[in-house]
């Protein structure tokens, strides 16, 4: 099979245009979307929700505060890992999604143990806290800046499984959003974290999966 003349010309011009590839392009660009999106989310928390009044004390060593932060960061890293792989042709997001499942499993296990040790009449109030009805939706809202940027950035890379790549971007953005929201939220229940934070991040991942095939389509 011979290659037609104009395709050969194209190859010549592409070879002439070649510049060395910068290693780390993919992770750097995706990380940049979290830097900007996370800053916007932080701004939204400061302006509309306010930092929790006891932030200074809890940051000095409250276990639940750090567990919420840690869970959010691990979910964000899991999403980052998956998105970084799925932004490439033939990339597999399995590692990141497994990490997410592992983190979720550990938080659920921890919450279940705490629940069992609690007097039964305390269980419901600890699970629902004061803010179960607003927590997931706020995390979803806070994830939107990072999600939008991550989708824009990934579209210029080369995802080939768009729904999965979108879900990874959503998981990533959800983790960033949950970390920012943890600076406002005063809930202390492990079951609260396991349920409502997870739900918020899951909503963000679902939004990413929904938008993926449309937002990530490239030519």
């Amino acid at each position, binding site marked *: *099979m011979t*290659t*037609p003349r*104009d*395709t*050969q010309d*194209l*190859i*010549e011009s*592409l*070879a*002439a*245009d*070649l*510049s*060395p*590839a*910068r290693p780390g*392009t*993919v992770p750097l660009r995706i990380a940049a979307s979290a830097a900007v999106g996370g800053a916007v989310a932080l701004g939204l928390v400061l302006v509309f929700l306010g930092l929790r009044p006891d932030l200074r004390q809890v940051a000095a060593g409250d276990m639940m505060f750090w567990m919420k932060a840690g869970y959010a960061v691990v979910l964000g890293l899991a999403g980052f890992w998956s998105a970084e792989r799925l*932004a*490439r*042709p*033939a*990339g597999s997001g399995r590692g990141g999604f497994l990490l997410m499942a592992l983190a979720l499993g550990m938080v659920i296990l921890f919450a279940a143990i705490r629940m069992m040790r609690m007097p039964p009449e305390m269980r419901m109030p600890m699970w629902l806290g004061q803010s179960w009805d607003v927590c997931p939706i706020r995390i979803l809202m806070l994830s939107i800046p990072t999600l939008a940027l991550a989708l824009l950035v990934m579209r210029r*890379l*080369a995802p*080939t499984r768009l729904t999965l790549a979108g879900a990874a971007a959503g998981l990533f953005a959800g983790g960033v959003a949950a970390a920012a929201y943890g600076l406002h939220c005063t809930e202390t229940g492990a079951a609260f974290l396991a349920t409502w934070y997870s739900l918020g991040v899951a909503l963000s991942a679902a939004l990413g999966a929904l938008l993926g095939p449309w937002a990530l*389509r*490239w*030519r």
Partner: protein
Amino acid sequence: MSVDLEPRLNALMRRAQAGEAAAWRELLSVLAERLAIYFGRRLAQDHAADLEDLVQETLLAIHRRRATYDPSQPFTAWAYAVARYKLIDHWRRRRIRAHVPLEFVEDSLWEEPDLSAEARLDLERLLVTLPERQQRLIRDVKIEGLSLAEAGARAGMTEGAAKVALHRAMATLSSRTRAT
């Protein structure tokens, strides 16, 4: 599935990523030929005119998005994923995707053209009549050359179960060949 292509193409790609134009020219030339065969088999007769456009578009995409290639991963899989994406995108834009079974694009860009295009099409037509699980088994074992244990692991079954399922699938295929 050509096994010896991977090291050669991977080496070319690494040199190209370092900025060596000659390596990029050689790699793109190999790809142009492969892509023409791959798309040629899958475009309907009335879209044969799109073939060269599609090849060029794919080469361009490979050029523009080359930074997404991770040298530690197989280059053949990377390039194939781009080609497959471009083909599906082409179908989608032409709104003809519904008429072509998606399974049509499942086999690899890297198979040696040892079967004539005709025979390959016949095989594809037969294969797509099988349940997806059986199709995959046949592709993995008979076309890709995986062992029964590997193909079984991929499909989430034991080697023994894979053997039985494959046998059943081959029996169905051969009875259909006789029927046509």
